[in-house]
């Protein structure tokens, strides 16, 4: 019996692998609304860009300056991503497989740089080497800033590797190097790619480091255009170019990711006696992590603290306090809004990973590359027409949610993927409709991981600068805006306490984020059989 065309069409859009059961249309509507909201900055860009006649747009895109900027951006991107992939893979593998003293502390140290915004990094390194500038310097700073993303992504994935494969390979006589390349690498390929994606999109959207180091990337060019000629149209055209670059980058990652990796629920995890004991490897890992921590944690702290101490002016305690409270509260609000926004899509994916949800996910991913200045202006444009909402805490939090929604969604889909399909099926046979399966099984299991994603948004929002400057309520300062305010008049000593406080506060969510990578299962065989790792 052939299915009618209409049946087939609805099937293609809303089902996958022939799974029966329907989803409440309200959910699709919610996701649709979410997409509309996410597209606000893009609509703004398109409107502004096309205020120019098309021939002028083409001229702008093709002039040599644009191509130069594209080239600079691409080179920077390539260098940072390549270094990250190599260093990130080697260091994470070392941290995971080699028996080290106090591994958990090492991991925390390696991830801690996430708490430091790229502009603070740059300021501190410039304080030591004032003549620091150029693409290589920017690459150096950006690698320092983004390596934790790689480490986190890969460590989480390494932890889930079935040690059984490795044990078999060893008994088959493969050397460690061979095992690494033939057994381990294929399994972590997806997470290397994910980490590289995060790092790359960070590079594309970064402004702080590159502008201070005189490297004109796309974001710097956009900012310059806004500031120099107030030609918002030209700046919007270049912003669209930036977004195109990000789309290409994301597409490349999609190809590499192994989306059909099935989670083997029954597996052996690495235990402490399966770790490598080689002294040489231990030293290598310890030294690498040590050097990285030195460059990325010790140096910035040293500079900040010495500036702080040598500050002859009295410290404005109340200013520090209010700025901290503002930072924490707006960032937290932004993270919550991001969570709320990503929830409908999460529900949809959990219930039914069909074509619609995949497309929605991809559209949201593009948001990763939006520079803060673009979202800021888009919301200035829209918000100023909306009366009291403009320059309110709510709008700023909303801007954070928009800026970092991609992170929230990516983490949500990852968390939901962690839930084995078989659990959802069992729940269904026990009488739960798709919605109930999501609420009673999927979300409770995914919750810790979703929490971490929200923490990541919180952390990133605390460091945000350009959109904050534009959208904050007049008179409200965050730690980031205060740092900028002092640094722009060269009062680095006065900026130091704010920078220090920001890093210390941000260290808390950073520490929490490092936790899952630290835990290594110490479950050995229970009684007579292997216990499946369902957690």
């Amino acid at each position, binding site marked *: 019996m052939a299915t009618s065309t209409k049946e087939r069409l609805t099937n293609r859009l809303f089902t996958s692998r022939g799974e029966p059961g329907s989803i409440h249309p309200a959910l699709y509507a919610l996701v649709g609304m979410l997409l509309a909201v996410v597209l606000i900055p893009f609509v703004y860009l398109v409107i502004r860009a096309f205020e120019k006649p098309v021939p002028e747009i083409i001229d702008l895109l093709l002039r040599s*300056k644009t191509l130069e900027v594209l080239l600079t951006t691409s080179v920077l991107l390539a260098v940072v991503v390549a270094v990250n992939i190599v260093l990130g893979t080697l260091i994470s593998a070392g941290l995971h497989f080699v028996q080290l003293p106090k591994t958990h502390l090492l991991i925390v140290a390696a991830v801690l740089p996430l708490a430091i915004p790229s502009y603070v990094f740059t300021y501190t390194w410039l304080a030591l080497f*004032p003549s620091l*500038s150029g693409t290589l310097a920017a690459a150096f700073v950006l690698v320092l800033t983004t390596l934790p993303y790689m480490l986190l992504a890969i460590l989480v994935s390494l932890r889930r590797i079935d040690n059984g494969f490795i044990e078999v390979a060893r008994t088959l006589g493969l050397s460690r190097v061979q095992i690494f390349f033939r057994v381990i690498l294929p399994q972590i390929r997806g997470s290397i790619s994910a980490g590289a994606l995060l790092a790359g999109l960070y590079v594309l959207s970064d402004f702080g480091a590159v502008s*201070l180091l*005189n490297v*004109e990337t796309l974001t710097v060019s956009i900012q*310059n255009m*806004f*500031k*120099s*000629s*107030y*030609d*918002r149209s030209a700046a919007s055209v270049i912003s669209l170019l930036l977004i195109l670059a990000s789309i290409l980058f994301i597409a490349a990652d999609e190809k590499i990711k192994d989306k059909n990796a099935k989670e083997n629920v029954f597996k052996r995890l690495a235990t402490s006696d399966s770790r490598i004991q080689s002294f040489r490897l231990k030293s290598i890992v310890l030294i690498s992590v040590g050097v990285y921590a030195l460059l990325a944690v010790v140096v910035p702290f040293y500079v900040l603290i010495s500036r702080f101490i040598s500050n*002859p002016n009295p410290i404005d305690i109340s200013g520090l306090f209010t700025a901290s409270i503002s930072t924490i509260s707006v960032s937290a609000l932004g993270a919550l809004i991001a969570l709320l926004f990503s929830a409908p899509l999460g529900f949809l994916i959990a219930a039914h990973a069909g074509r619609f949800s995949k497309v929605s996910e991809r559209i949201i991913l593009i948001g990763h590359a939006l520079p803060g200045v673009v979202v800021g*202006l888009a919301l*200035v*444009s829209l918000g*100023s*027409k909306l009366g009291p909402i*403009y*320059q309110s805490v709510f709008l700023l939090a909303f801007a954070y949610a928009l800026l970092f929604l991609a992170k929230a969604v990516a983490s949500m889909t990852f968390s939901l993927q962690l839930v084995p399909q078989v659990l959802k099926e069992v729940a269904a046979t026990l009488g739960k409709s798709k919605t109930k399966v999501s609420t009673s099984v999927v979300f409770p299991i995914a919750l810790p991981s979703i929490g971490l994603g929200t923490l990541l948004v919180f952390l990133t929002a605390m460091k945000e600068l350009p959109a904050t*400057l*534009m959208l904050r309520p*007049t*008179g409200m300062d965050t730690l980031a805006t205060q740092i900028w*305010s*002092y640094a*722009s*008049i*060269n*009062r*680095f*000593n*006065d900026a130091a306490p704010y920078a220090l406080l920001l890093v210390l506060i941000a260290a808390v969510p950073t520490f929490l984020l490092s936790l899952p990578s630290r835990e290594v299962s110490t479950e050995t065989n229970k009684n007579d059989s292997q216990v499946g790792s369902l957690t």
Partner: protein
Amino acid sequence: MVLVASLLAGCSSSNEQATDPTEITVYSGRSEEFIAPFFAQWEQSSGITLNIRYGDSAELAAQILEEGSNSPADLFLSQDAGSLGAVAKAELFIPLPNDVAANIPAEFVAANRNWVGVTGRARVFAYNPDLLKVLPTSVTDLTNAQYKGELGIAPSNASFQAFVTALINAQGTDFAQKWLEGLKANDVRIYAKNSAIVEAIDKKEISIGLVNHYYVWEVSEGLGREINAKLGFFKAGDLGNMINVSGAGVLASSKKYAAAQDLINFLTSQKIQNEFVSKTHEYSLIKDAMAPATLPALAEIGAPTVDLNALKDIQKTQDLLVKVGLL
């Protein structure tokens, strides 16, 4: 001009003015550290609270342009004329009556009185007296061999770009291009900020640099010690002596003109202008006002005549700098 003013006033006749405002909103491109005390003084005397939004002048201008007539700002205080010009071009300012900021000379006021200058910022050269024995008399001297590798500039800085724009306006693009190329061939050193140039002079990395006049003071304040750098002016009329201004304008969409204009009057009053000189080391724009310590009076600098209104389009300057390879 009265016609224009009344036309503009007519356009915004629907703009009802608040009778007794308790607060006004200021977008300030001047940094909090320097301007806040002045604002505080006015708040005290007027009884009106100020909501001050601090930011970069150009970014604030861009924000105002984006906000358009919905901008919550009543007053825009900018660090340079270019940003003011951009807002004026978009017709977002309301012209100031003749009795407001009356003591600012016409050369520091926009056409149509859309905005007025508040303080003067002179372009100068800073130099290390131990290293530099022969002082240049014109910016064109700087392409000479004796300054090879010794000169520092900050091409990404708005003040330098304003200067180059003035150069282009006065002498033409070709002249400006030749000069810039000459600098490049002379191994000019590039810095991101004016303060960096002054610090470099103090450290003897270079012996001379093109900066705004107050930077020597600012850097020395920031470092907490005397520095080994002095200021010099070029010969009278040389474009190197250009005077730029920080200024203010009232937004046409504001419902509190009167209060905003009062603030401008305050900032341009003799007393406050003198305070600018003594506290922030800038020039007062009032005729015959005293100069900042150790510097010649404004009238004696030998500044060239520059139409500040024409400084707003920096794009062509930036394009030229890029073409020459300095940006």
